[in-house]
């Protein structure tokens, strides 16, 4: 449900300057990183003080202070201020500059004081200062604190301009810092460390009151705060794929929304600010408004109102307005439940009517068509328009079956599309035309992404980022992995599931093109979507996506998404879809890429007006998530993460699910109402269809006169720009992408396998044996063949080895991706990255060319990210493989003779066998499955799973012997042969890695099965074991 309150530039309340900045995040161009599971590559250390000349290193160059953490307490700050008190740090003098200004002087006084401070900094450096503390302490009735971010950035840029920046370190002592986002910004604009003294004092006060923080010492609470702020910054950094504070400092990976250009150039030079906005005068006004709360003009503080009523995160009457408030929720629910279009209009009026309360950028837009209106009868019917609508990607797991199916049934009835969300689809629904979701999502966790899932899709959506938390992964905690959720996700009940921040097969746009190709091969009939989140530069990414042959690009607004997201992401990451969509449309048009890709948008779309504005800005399809949920009964509890949703939507709790009251007909009503409203607007604008309207941004303006103290500085014209187009150029999708499937080697394979494919049933399929040469231009080999098998024979595929093809040569990427049971691919040669991606029951065997004379066990046989998201089948790899071996494997048995770093990361099931060296960070985030590793160096195991390493028992030994034997048979492995030859000693060299919860669950299952309990009770026992373990 994301955020639905105004961005800072539109807020009627004084907002902290931090709020005008949004965090940038990595999507496609580079991967975000997982700072928890891959902590070893991160560092919060930074050094402070003058930096010597890099080209002339001397002993003095090393004279700097190392800070282990970017947030410091008062003692640490005092130490730094008095660093040379004993004279043992000669040259390390510090100076504290007072960041206060005369508040009655407004913006002029603020600007002038900043100039003065910069001059004071110059003088201090001249006098030998090497640490400058920017402090806003000691404000009084006349003097207000300069916003710490403004001051820090101003001094930082001043010092850069005057070429003095490397001579000093900047420390910030500020009262306005309390959130992760604040600290991130300060560091991003040059601070070496931040002392949030007021936040710490507030914590102390809370501890003293004892109400919310009982039983904790103030000191510990402050330490916790500091730790959380610092670790939070790490998380923000990792969304951009930056792993050390040292490289984050001054990196300015933020976008300004609603700040004046000249203001940004002066104080935040280099930051993008697309639509102008407020400058120093308004910033000063905002400071003055806050100051007046503390020092009211009347001299009489308000009784019983020590703290203001916020309303940013939860609606409050006196607080920040929200698009969904009691009025709109009530009217929307009532209108759709009783099919009352008149009440629906009251709802949309309240959402659209923003002259009194500005909420969104589109709220400022007006229609300036000058076109002749047409009769509404000439406009395409609502039944055509609803086909362009889809519901959001909410996983079954995050929302209840009842809620998920309600949306699916409604969309299927309408001819629109619902989305599975990450986490697969129950086969029961997969084949039910009424209840299936036609968009199947593929997210970084690849849960439930099988050949069968893909084959039965109309659209396949690659989620690069998610509106509520772009650049982040997700986590389904064990207690929410109910048996039915586990089933669709191909995982174990009660065992937590992690979706990594990046897709581990996408580190670049080329990789994305590869995944698009893989998925297209897995289902040539499906459209492939790429879901992006609006931020500056998203247009360029979208252009890349179009070139990478995606059929659809989705631009999500920052305001979409779940109530379960971290608040710092919910509020501060990503931008409004209006900005991203306009940029996307313009970039695609300029590069001649628009006509081959469908553009879709979503993010708090609520009314027909929203849809028409999105169409004019360039979207031809439209996604809705929050509104249809509200129609289904959601009352914006914002407790999606607690499993306590009282209306049975965001919960798996059976008691609460019974309270679900939504019906598909309500959702149908909603979409029909929206379509009706769209028709009315199209008629007014003189368009007969949405297609005609797409991309006519020139019909929008900001005529809706805005007399608002902040918004009047906004310049929205750039959004309405339409590039010069050649005669007859279209502004919407017209032609299909060329996916190059005609050239695929699989066409050959399908012919070769025709005997097997022609069978009526799997049992009748005649075995096929073939041999064929392969080159590295042959990508995604076997996938289209697999698609044919699955389409014909369903998820169970064919009997093992029915189609058995031997390839000779070097395979391109994604060899054997999504191959189902019954298909065996033998490669004699070597393979690239992503072998056996999404393996769905098939078998893949890779061995060196029979003529090769190298020692296989010392050579790399296949690249990175083997068996990513595999759900079943076998992979035998004779030789070493790269990094992230078996990442997120949930069912396949995979053997390799040596693996790189991060092996078995996020694995949730299946077996991994390593017969050689193992890299660092093994089993990070591994929550299920078993790995058998020879000669394991315990230091290479991720700390989170250090306790999961144990010796083998007899069953293991027997199982392992069998697998090693087959590895030897299939690949001719000499390593395996040697081990088998002296098995009794060899087997003692193996360790087993089995995550503790997973182990407990398996044990419970075993015990329950032996006790002869029925299936439902077995899973119950498993859940119990998981939650108590």
């Amino acid at each position, binding site marked *: 449900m994301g955020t639905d309150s105004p961005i800072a530039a539109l807020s009627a309340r004084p907002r902290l300057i931090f709020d005008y900045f949004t965090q940038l995040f990595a999507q496609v161009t580079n991967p975000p990183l997982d700072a928890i599971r891959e902590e070893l590559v991160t560092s919060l250390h930074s050094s402070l003080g003058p930096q010597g000349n890099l080209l002339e290193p001397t002993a003095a160059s090393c004279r700097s202070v190392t800070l282990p953490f970017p947030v410091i307490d008062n003692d640490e700050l005092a130490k730094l201020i008095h660093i040379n008190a004993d004279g043992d740090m000669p040259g390390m003098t510090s100076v504290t500059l007072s960041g206060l200004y005369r508040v009655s002087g407004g913006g002029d006084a603020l600007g002038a004081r900043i100039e003065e401070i910069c001059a004071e900094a110059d003088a201090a450096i001249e006098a030998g200062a090497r640490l400058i503390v920017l402090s806003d302490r000691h404000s009084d009735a006349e003097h207000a604190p300069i916003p710490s971010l403004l001051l820090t950035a101003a001094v930082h840029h001043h010092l850069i301009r005057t070429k003095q920046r490397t001579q000093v370190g900047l420390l910030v002592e500020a009262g306005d810092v309390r959130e992760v986002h604040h600290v991130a910004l300060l560091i991003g604009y040059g601070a070496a460390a931040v002392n949030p003294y007021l936040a710490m004092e507030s914590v102390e006060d809370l501890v003293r009151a004892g109400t919310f923080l009982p039983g904790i010492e103030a000191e510990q609470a402050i330490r916790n705060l500091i730790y959380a702020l610092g670790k939070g910054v790490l998380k923000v950094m990792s969304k951009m794929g930056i792993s050390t504070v040292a490289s984050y400092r001054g990196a300015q990976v933020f976008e300004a929304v609603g700040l004046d250009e000249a203001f940004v150039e002066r104080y935040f030079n280099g930051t993008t600010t697309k639509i102008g906005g407020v400058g120093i005068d308004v910033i000063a006004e905002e400071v003055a408004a806050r100051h007046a709360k503390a020092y009211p003009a009347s001299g009489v503080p308000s*009784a019983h109102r020590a703290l203001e009523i916020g309303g940013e995160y*939860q609606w409050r009457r006196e607080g920040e307005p929200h698009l969904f408030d009691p009025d709109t929720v009530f009217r929307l629910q009532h209108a759709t439940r009783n099919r009352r279009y008149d009440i629906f209009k009251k709802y949309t009026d309240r959402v659209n009517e923003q002259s009194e309360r500005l909420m969104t950028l589109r709220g400022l837009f007006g229609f300036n068509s000058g076109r002749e209106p047409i009769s509404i009868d000439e406009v395409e019917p609502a039944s055509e328009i609803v086909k362009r609508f889809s519901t959001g990607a909410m996983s079954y797991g995050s929302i209840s079956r009842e809620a998920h199916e309600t949306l699916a049934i409604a969309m299927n009835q309408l001819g629109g599309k619902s989305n599975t969300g990450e986490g697969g689809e129950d086969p029961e629904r997969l084949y039910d035309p009424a209840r299936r979701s036609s968009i199947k999502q593929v997210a970084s966790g690849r849960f439930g992404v099988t050949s069968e899932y893909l084959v039965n899709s109309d659209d396949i959506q690659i989620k690069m980022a998610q509106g509520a938390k772009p650049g982040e992964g997700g986590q389904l905690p064990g207690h929410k992995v109910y048996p039915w959720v586990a089933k669709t996700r191909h995982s174990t009940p009660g065992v937590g599931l992690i979706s990594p921040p990046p897709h581990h097969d996408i580190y670049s746009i080329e990789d994305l093109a590869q995944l698009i190709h893989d998925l297209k091969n897995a289902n040539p009939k499906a459209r492939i979507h790429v879901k992006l989140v609006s931020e500056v530069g998203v247009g360029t990414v979208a252009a890349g996506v179009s070139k990478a042959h995606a059929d659809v690009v989705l631009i999500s607004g920052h305001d979409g998404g779940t109530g379960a997201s971290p608040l710092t992401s919910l509020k501060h990451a990503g931008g409004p879809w209006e900005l991203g969509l306009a940029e996307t449309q313009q970039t695609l048009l300029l590069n001649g890429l628009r006509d081959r890709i469908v553009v879709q948008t979503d993010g708090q779309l609520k009314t027909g007006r929203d849809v028409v504005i999105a169409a004019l800005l360039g979207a031809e399809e439209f996604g809705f998530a929050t509104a249809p949920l509200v129609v289904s009964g959601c009352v914006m*509890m914002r407790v999606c993460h607690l499993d306590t949703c009282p209306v049975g939507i965001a919960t798996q709790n059976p008691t609460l699910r019974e309270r679900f009251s939504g019906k598909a007909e309500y959702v149908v009503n909603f979409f029909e109402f929206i379509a009706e409203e769209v028709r009315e607007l199209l008629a007014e604008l003189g368009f007969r269809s949405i297609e005609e309207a797409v991309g006519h941004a020139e019909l929008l303006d900001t005529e809706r006169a805005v007399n608002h103290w902040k918004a009047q500085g906004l310049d929205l014209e750039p959004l309405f720009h339409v590039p010069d187009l050649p005669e007859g150029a279209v502004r919407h999708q017209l032609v299909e992408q060329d996916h190059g499937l005609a050239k695929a080697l699989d066409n050959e394979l399908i012919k070769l396998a025709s005997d097997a494919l022609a069978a009526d049933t799997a049992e009748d399929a005649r075995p096929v044996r073939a041999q064929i040469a392969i080159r590295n231009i042959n990508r995604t080999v076997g996938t289209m063949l697999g698609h044919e098998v699955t389409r014909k024979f369903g998820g169970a595929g064919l009997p093992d080895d029915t189609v058995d093809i031997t390839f000779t040569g070097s395979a391109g990427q994604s060899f054997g991706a999504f191959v189902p049971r019954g298909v065996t691919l033998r490669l004699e040669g070597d393979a690239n990255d992503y072998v056996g991606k999404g393996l769905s029951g098939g078998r893949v065997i890779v061995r060196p060319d029979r003529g090769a004379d190298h020692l296989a066990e010392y050579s790399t046989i296949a690249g990175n990210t083997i068996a990513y998201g595999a759900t079943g089948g076998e992979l035998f790899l004779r030789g070493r493989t790269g990094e992230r071996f078996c990442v997120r494997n949930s069912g396949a048995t995979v053997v390799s003779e040596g693996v790189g770093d991060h092996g078995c990361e996020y694995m949730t099931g299946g077996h991994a066998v390593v017969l050689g060296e193992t890299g660092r960070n093994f089993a990070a985030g591994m929550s299920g499955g078993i790995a058998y590793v020879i000669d394991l160096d315990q230091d290479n195991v991720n700390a989170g799973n250090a306790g999961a390493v144990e010796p083998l028992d007899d069953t293991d030994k027997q199982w392992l012997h069998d697998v090693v034997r087959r590895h030897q048979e299939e690949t001719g492995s000499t390593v395996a042969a040697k081990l088998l030859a002296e098995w009794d000693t060899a087997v003692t060299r193996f360790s087993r890695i089995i995550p503790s919860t997973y182990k407990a669950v398996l044990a419970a299952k075993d015990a329950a099965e032996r006790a002869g309990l029925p299936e439902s009770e077995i899973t119950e026992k498993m859940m119990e074991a998981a939650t108590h373990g």
Partner: protein
Amino acid sequence: MADPKGFLNHGREVATSRPVGERVRDWNEVYVPGSLLPIISKQASRCMDCGIPFCHNGCPLGNLIPEWNDYAYREDWEAASERLHATNNFPEFTGRLCPAPCESACVLGINQPAVTIKNVEVSIIDKAWDNGDVAPQAPERLSGKTVAVIGSGPAGLAAAQQLTRAGHTVAVYERADRIGGLLRYGIPEFKMEKRHINRRIEQMRAEGTKFRTEVEIGRDITARDLRKRYDAVVVAAGATVSRDLPVPGRELNGIHFAMEYLPLANKVQEGDYVQPPITAEGKHVVVIGGGDTGADCVGTAHRQGAASVTQLEIMPKPGDERSPGQPWPTFPMLYKVTSAHEEGGERIYSVSTTHFEGDEDGNVQSLHLIEVEFVDGKLTQKPGTERVIPAQLVTLAMGFTGTDQENGLVAQFGLDLDERGNIARDADYRTNVPGVYVAGDAGRGQSLIVWAIAEGRSAARGVDRFLTGASELPAPIRPTDRALTV
């Protein structure tokens, strides 16, 4: 937030009432003293701390219900009281008297019994008084401006307290002999013991508010004089004109407006009388009007020892469940069993009084009624359904039509009225006369106590802005705001 799973683990439990046989023999509040405290934290834990707290919207005051529910759950009574007072000047009144539109709007109420918000509220404030946490909030500085508030009901008192705390010097004028308006004389003791008002008035006096009783503006002091003496005036004179029942026999003895009957019973409690001049003792009592005031008459008559009590209502009996036209979170018309109804009497719905009959001394003896039904949206009498019931005391509790104009207040100020006969005002609660503001039922028409307090608070902001050019005072509602309906 309160316990995230509180609502799953605890059911709704309300304050325990004293046995009927015991409580009708005295005038004390009907609840067992102290019965709430042991259960209230658990009850508060049922609050779900909603993303959109509809309760907070359903309450005209904008009470920060989830926030003080949380404090109550954690038993931080002082903080709870502080947060409660942030939006409500008199929670001890609302916690007893408000019909709780907040509970109708409670999100839990969509499919479960709502949180006992009103009980939490009264627990917090009672505890705060007991603990001495309700201290006077005298302003640190005086503005030098003076304000007269006409009327000492909840709207007038709220406006007076807000303005006093903002530094203005405020005098409250009350035509009755005691402060409190409807709170004092309209509400029976068994619903709210009057010591609660006295205690609050003491706090207000300590803050600096002046009270002038038995002064009727318009009669004792003319509006012009008052306006001259003060920098601003707030008219909070209520909507005190009762709706009459002009049927034959109305002039008989023993037929009284509820607002003639109830005050006298209250005056007995104040010690002004030993026996009330109008009493139900030994009489067949008929109460006309099915609302809360009617119920107050019923409870009062029980305690005075009525021979029988019958309550008449012209509208059909409301249902036990919400009707389709009154979905959640609106404040629905439901069949309510108040404490007075628990104590006895009969309720007759869909009936209209045709006339009264008296004895030779002109004392009413019986009431003739006829059944009515809706025909084409109009209430129509059903021929042949006439009947007679004994009636020796009749109270008319059919609502109020508007503010009192007889004393000359409205005319002397020259105040414009709106189309419903209430005093007209702009968005700042200002009347057409500069410096004269209106709050409460006088401007809104008859309403609930929470609306009155909300009006008083909001009007205070308008006055404060008028006097000082700006205001930090909150204004929970606009004059045009109404409860959410379909």
